[in-house]
Structures are given as C-alpha cells and as structure tokens.
C-alpha cells in the first residue's frame, strides 16, 4: 500500500508537464479590484498555503475582518455586480472537459441560485487570477472547492446585507428562486437590490462550511453543457474563428527536419508580393498577408536551405530509451523499495521476466494550435487555445523581452487539448509576425504542423521481473520504466517485496504531457504482467487480482465491472476473447473488461483484424458532480484509448515525422467503437476527484489480455495490432 502523501507525490510528479515558468507574486490592491469591478461585492479566495501565512501576518498587523490584507496568491474570485449577476473568475480553461459547467454548478450550489445567474470568466490573464494550468485532473479536487468556499462565503455576506436591508435577523433570511426572503416570504430582495451601491471586498476565511455531497441539489445533477446552443449552431468562437480589424493571416516556413539550422534563404520573391510581410529572425522564417491563399503563396515562394544532423528512427527507439540519460543523471522517481526482491524471488514457485513497450502517440486535438496576436503600442494581446494561459504569457514575455503585465493571453473555450496544448509556440509565432507587420495576425497550424511541431506522449520501455507462489500470492515485483514517466507506476497490489522505478532517457522526439500521462503505459505493463502471472499459476485473472488486492475502492470497481460484464458467466464465442484490467490514478479507481473479436484481414499484407466488440468500465472518483458529463468523459476516454491500444503510433525517420496526417496516422472512428457500458459508482462520502484522465488507463491492458484469451498470443507493445494480428 502507499500512503496518502505518496499518492500526492505521484500526482505532483508531472515530470513531463512542461511547466517551467515561475509562480508570480503580484501585489493586489483593494483599489485595483474595485476599479476593475466597479461597484458590487467581491470575494477573493486565497490559496490555502497562503492563508496559513496570512494568519501570522494578520496577527502582526492587527488587522482583520473586511480590512484584512489582500493576499498575493489568489486562487479565484467572485464578483456580484450591481445587476445581481454572479461573475466568477478562474484561470482554468475549458476545452471539452466541461469544467465550465461543473464549476458553475459548484457556485450555484453554494449560492443557492440557478446556474443561469452565473457567468464564468476563464483563462484570461488580465481578468482571472494566476493559475498553473488546466492539467492533472486538478480542477475538480482543487478549483471547485475554492469556488465553493467563495460562493458559500458570498451567500453569508449577502444574507447579512439582505437582513440589514429587510430589518430582520440574518438567520431568518433564505435564498429562494434567486431572491432573499424572510421567514414568511412577506419581504423579498433581489441580488441586484443587495449588491447595488456596495463597494465591498472580502477575503474568504478558511473555515467556510460547505454543503456536503449528500445534500447537493445542483452539483450531482446532470446540468447541461454551458453555452451548448452556441456549439450546435456554430456560433461559438474558437481561437481560429476570431477576426480582428486589419487582421492578416500568417504562415511559417518549417525546417526540413528537427534540429535543423537555416543556412540560406531568399525571400525577395515573397517580399515583392503586395501586402506581404516576411520575417526572418534566427531560425524562424514566416510571412503574413491579407488573406490565407496569399500567405501560402508567399511562404512557398521563399527559397530555403536547411542543414539537419542525422537523427534516429523508429527502429532504434527502444534501444535508445533504455540508455539512461547522462545529463539527466539517469535518475527518475524514487524507487520506494519495499522488502527484498531477492528474497521474494527465492520464495516464488514461478518467476517471470518480461518487457513491454509503448510508442509515441499524438494528441491530435481536432482544433490545431491557433493564435491571434495583436500589438497595441508595447502591449501584446494574444488569443490562443492553451492549457496554460499564464505559462504562455510568460513564454511571450520572455520571447519579446517585455514585462508580463504587458502581455494578455485570452483562451476562448478550446477545441480540446488532452495535455497537448501546454506550450505557446503558435502564440509566439503569431506575435512575432504581428510585430513585424504592425497589424494583428492570425496563425492556425496545419494538421501536418500539429502532428510534427507539437510534442508527443512519451514512448517507453518497461521491464518487469516478478515471482508468484502456486497459490497465487505475488512475492516479488520489480518494475522499471524507461522514459515514459512515473504516473501510475505504483500499483495497489499487496506485494511484500517490490521496487517501482522510473528512469529518464534522452527522447529522440519532443515529448510532453498527455491525457493520463504515463499511467496508460504503466497500467498496460502492470496489468498485462498480472494477467501473465495469473495464467502461470492457472488462476482466473479476476480471482488472482482479488487475492492480491486489499484496497476496497479498487475491489469495488473490479467487482462492479466484472458483474456488469458477466465475467466467468459464459465462455467467449469462437475467435473472441475476454480481458480484464484495473487500476488507480489521480484519485480515480477504474476497472475495465473488454471483449475482442478477430475479423478477416483488411488486406493480404495484414494479419487478422482485432475488433473491440464490447467494453464495460466501472469508475469511481468520489462524489459525482455531473453524471451525464462524467459518463461522457469515461466513454470518451475509452474511445480515445482504442487508438493508443490498437493502432496509433508516430512513425519517424531521421528528424522527420513520416505519418503526419489523418490519412496516415489512424485515429479511432465510428466503426472502431465497441459497445460501451459504463458503471459509475457514486461515493458521496468522498471528495470528488477529476475524471478526464484516469478512465483512459484500463482499456489497453484489458484488450491485450482479451487478445491472449482469444489466441494464446501475448502482445507486449502498444499499439497492439496496427496491421492486424501479425504475430499469430
């Protein structure tokens, strides 16, 4: 077992999240707030660790109550304006995970008002408080409670004010249908009545009581997607839809290969085109023009010569990754050794040593990176779809050597990210072109650019050595992950002798965050190996897991999934197989059962096609915030996982991606979908965890185990069957 602190470590060891930017420490001043918001009531939520310091400094200054100092580290704020609207500000961004909805529910719940009264401003560095970024499934466990506290405190402040106005005791005032009412409803006030003429700013105390999940009436329900109508009518403006006055369209001339140096360029022909601006700055070369076709023509008209070093290809990948990185010291996460592997292996009746690999895969968000950059004097505003608006602000400030308060990054609700939009390349390129052109510039990466110049989910090699007794007790477990990452590396099996270690390597490709990070790779290896161990002692994979698992939450999802699937109730039909996997990550517990079927080969060069016929997943992440949206996330994670499990893989050769488009890089489509059944376990007694990532980790091992069940062939590399079942 691992304790809670270790779990937090694992969550925080987001080694590949690519956040190197410093944390900021702005001084907030009461007058700035009041200037920004005008009249009304503002409630600010300090981050918890700052509150602790606050306590000390308050003692020193002797100030308190409404005059207390505004903390530097603010997590969120809520403003109730004079029209009675509830404006919520958070640095988190919406990209399809539906946190605009779940956070609105959280505020509505505590404020006792309908969701329609609430408007969230998200991911705008001039308007919202600093936020590290939207990743790691942190919004639900961290931002939602902050906003809940703000809303609960706001309710108390408003009720107090309403009681004064109504001339009654505060404890007789309730909020009903967005109005303040006294005990017999003979007197009422609207939110606007109460906020009018106020200039009140309050820092939320830490000890605000929150509504327990068992009493939720708005959270916990399937509130429809906020602004849903704008999405089905095409009205919503993604970054790539934004148009500014006098705006130009940009196009970048890309290097011939990774790590290439520009040794020659001739830009005369492009510069001669009317209205075309050409920028050559170091290795960057790009154009801006009044329309897209002209920008493309101008970019084509530039003659360039790049010099690139020789670089590795797919064939060498796993040998390369196995070599520990010298400059990174070869180190990685702590091994957390328990017991002695040698003793554990000595006690075993069966020993097993196997290697598992995972390929680089691409996020391929359907909206490629896009940015609209506009300079106003020395002030830069950039609209861009990023998961780290403040991080990208820092990147822009650094690139243009300007102060961060001269940069504003605005993130319109974005066409997905999956961990793939942490960085600001496109924003920087658009801003560079806009500065040269003296006009706003929109730059939208092509699909090929997105596949090539973004970053990938890390590839990895995992070695496992283990021992098991004939009765199914696992005695030894040694697990080494090279390069793919430490997330989800620690299993929850009760093994007295174990080591789980991550080793950093020199990745030949640029790599970064991805939905679930390395938890997919680590669960694939672990749960495949557990299946192999079960078979080595002729035990049923479910019975084997239950024998070695104590964690009640994990046992519960395992039992729920297998029950709904009918595990051991029937034998698979001919050419079909059943597989099982389970795991824990980021506060969520997952169990997956898969049925695969073998179909005729797609062509004579391919093996029999593996089709995932049916998937049952049980998931538990504490108290459910929005059942429909949770269900949707789980289904979506399964759908996305189908690609990484069966056929997605980045191909590269000598510094080039050789399959940088959807016609060459296959992603899951309608026809690839299994029948999906989701079992959600609602634990109202437990805090809600994020749910966008963890449901992705169970599918690949369940499918690999099902393929073994059907064919007796053990596949240990993701993707499992990009060209069908070629090893049988």
């Amino acid at each position, binding site marked *: 077992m691992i304790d809670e602190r270790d779990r937090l470590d694992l969550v925080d060891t987001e080694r590949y999240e690519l956040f190197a930017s410093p944390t900021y420490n702005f001084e907030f001043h009461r007058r700035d707030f009041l200037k920004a918001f005008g009249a009304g009531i503002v409630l600010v939520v300090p981050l918890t660790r700052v509150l602790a310091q606050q306590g000390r400094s308050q003692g020193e200054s002797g100030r308190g109550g409404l005059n207390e100092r505004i903390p530097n580290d603010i997590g969120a704020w809520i403003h109730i304006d004079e029209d009675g609207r509830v404006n919520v500000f958070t640095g988190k961004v919406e990209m399809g995970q539906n946190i605009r909805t779940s956070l609105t529910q959280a505020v509505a719940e505590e404020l006792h008002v309908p969701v329609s009264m609430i408007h969230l401003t998200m991911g705008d560095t001039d308007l919202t408080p600093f936020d590290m970024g939207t990743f790691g499934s942190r919004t639900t466990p961290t931002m939602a409670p902050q906003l809940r506290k703000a809303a609960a405190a706001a309710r108390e402040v408003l009720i107090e004010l309403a009681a004064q106005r109504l001339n009654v005791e505060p404890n007789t005032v309730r909020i009903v249908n967005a109005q303040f009412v006294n005990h017999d409803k003979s007197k009422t006030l609207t939110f606007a009545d109460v906020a009018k003429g106020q200039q009140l700013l309050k820092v939320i105390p830490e000890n605000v009581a929150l509504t327990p999940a068992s009493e939720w009436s708005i959270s916990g329900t399937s509130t429809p997607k906020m602004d849903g109508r704008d999405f*089905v*009518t*095409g009205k919503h403006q*993604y970054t790539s839809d934004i148009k500014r006055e006098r705006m130009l369209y940009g196009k970048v001339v890309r290097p011939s290969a990774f790590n290439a140096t520009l040794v020659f360029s001739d830009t005369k022909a492009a510069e001669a085109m009317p209205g075309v601006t050409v920028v050559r700055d170091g290795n960057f070369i790009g154009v801006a023009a009044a329309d897209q076709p002209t920008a493309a023509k101008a970019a084509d008209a530039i003659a360039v010569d790049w010099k690139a070093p020789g670089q590795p290809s797919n064939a060498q990948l796993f040998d390369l990754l196995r070599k520990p990185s010298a400059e990174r010291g070869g180190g990685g996460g702590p091994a957390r050794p328990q017991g002695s592997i040698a003793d554990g292996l000595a006690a075993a009746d069966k020993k097993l040593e196997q290697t598992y690999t995972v390929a680089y895969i691409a996020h391929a968000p359907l909206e490629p990176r896009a940015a609209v950059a506009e300079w106003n004097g020395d002030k830069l505003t950039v609209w861009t779809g990023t998961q780290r608006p403040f991080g990208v602000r820092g990147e822009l400030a650094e690139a243009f050597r300007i102060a961060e308060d001269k940069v504003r990054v605005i993130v319109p609700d974005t*066409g997905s990210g999956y961990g793939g939009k942490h960085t600001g390349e496109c924003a920087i390129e658009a801003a560079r072109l806009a500065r040269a052109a003296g006009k706003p510039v929109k730059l939208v990466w092509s*699909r090929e650019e997105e596949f090539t110049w973004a970053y990938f989910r890390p590839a990895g090699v995992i070695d496992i050595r283990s021992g098991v007794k004939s009765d199914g007790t696992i005695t030894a477990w040694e697990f080494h992950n090279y390069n793919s990452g430490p997330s989800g590396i620690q299993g929850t099996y009760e093994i007295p002798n174990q080591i789980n270690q991550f080793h950093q390597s020199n990745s030949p490709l640029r790599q970064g965050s991805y939905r679930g990070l390395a938890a997919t790779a680590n669960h694939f290896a672990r749960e495949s190996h557990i299946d192999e161990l079960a078979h080595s002692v002729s035990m049923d994979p479910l019975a084997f897991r239950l024998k070695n698992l104590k964690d009640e939450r994990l046992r519960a999802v395992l039992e729920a999934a297998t029950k709904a699937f009918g595990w051991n109730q029937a034998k698979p039909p001919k050419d079909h197989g059943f597989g099982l996997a389970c795991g824990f990550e980021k506060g969520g517990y997952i169990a997956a059962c898969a049925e695969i079927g073998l179909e005729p080969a797609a062509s004579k060069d391919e093996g029999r096609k593996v089709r995932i016929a049916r998937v049952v997943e049980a998931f538990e992440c504490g108290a459910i915030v929005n059942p429909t949206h949770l269900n949707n996330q789980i289904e979506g994670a399964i*759908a996305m996982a189908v690609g990484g499990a069966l056929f997605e893989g980045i191909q590269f050769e000598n510094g080039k991606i050789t399959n940088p488009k*959807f016609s060459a890089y296959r992603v899951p489509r*309608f026809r690839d*979908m299994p029948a999906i059944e989701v079992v959600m376990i609602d634990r109202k007694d437990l805090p809600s965890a994020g749910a966008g990532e963890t449901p992705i980790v169970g599918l690949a091992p369940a499918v690999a185990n099902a393929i073994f069940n059907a064919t007796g062939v053990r596949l240990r590399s993701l993707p499992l069957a990009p060209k069908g079942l070629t090893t049988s």
Partner: protein
Amino acid sequence: MGKITALNVNGKKLPVDVDATASLLGVLRNDLNLTGSKYGCGEGQCGACTVLVDGQPIRSCITQVGRVAGKQITTIEGLEKDGRLHPLQEAFLKADAMQCAYCTSGMIMSSAGLLQKNPRPSRDEIISAMNGNICRCGTYQRIVNAIEIAAGTVKEVAR
C-alpha cells in the same frame, strides 16, 4: 484564373471576390465570416468542414469554390430557422453528443445530409455514413444516439 463573384449560401446570394480555385472552407470562414465550419485536416479526412451542396454533404476544405458556384450551399449557420433549432441540433444537445464540440458542426452537417437521403437510417447505416467524421473526444456513441433521436428511430437518450 477565373473569379467567382457570388455564392448561394443558406438561401441567400452572397457577393464574393475570390479565385475559382480557392477552397470553399476558406471562403466561407474568411470572406463570408461563416466560421461554424471548421478546419481540421485540409485533406477531407476529418469532416469538421462538412457543408451541404445541393443537399449532399461535402468536405469544404478540399472543394474549390468554382465547383459549387450556382449551387445551394448549406452551412451549420443555416440550420436554425427563426430562432428554432434543427431537430439534429436539439438531439445533439439532448444526447450530450459533444465535448470540445469542434467537430460538432461537421457532425451535424454530415448527419443532416444522411437524414435528407435516408430519414430513418439503421445504426449500421449511421455508422457507415458518419465514418468519415472524426470526434477526437470520442463522443461517437452519443452522436449515433443523437442521430437516432433526430430520426425518430429511438425516443430516449440511451442510458
């Protein structure tokens, strides 16, 4: 190179001034400010740019405007009538058939094309007709459900 001076979009004749070889998607988005149709791949592989031309779903990113001049083009912006959503738009909301929703316009237009031709498609027919549209968030099961709701072949949201 020929010029195109007008396009029939959503029942209106709209003036444009573009080369006949320009991509329909670019003209809709940049010249006519109809940004509901999306760029996703530029090779007709993802369906985010789907519009109807004389009722047929086509990939506007690989369609030259010269080939559709004079024809009736319908985009996502043309489905809502007098403030009332198209049954498919209603059904997509009802089935929660989206997450980031970047693919949604294309999904709705592809399914609108399908329902014009085949008002009560079977599940297999829906999957065949929609296989060219990618939803990277993986809401496929819900999209199928939404189309069935709009077609009236199922009454309720599945699950």
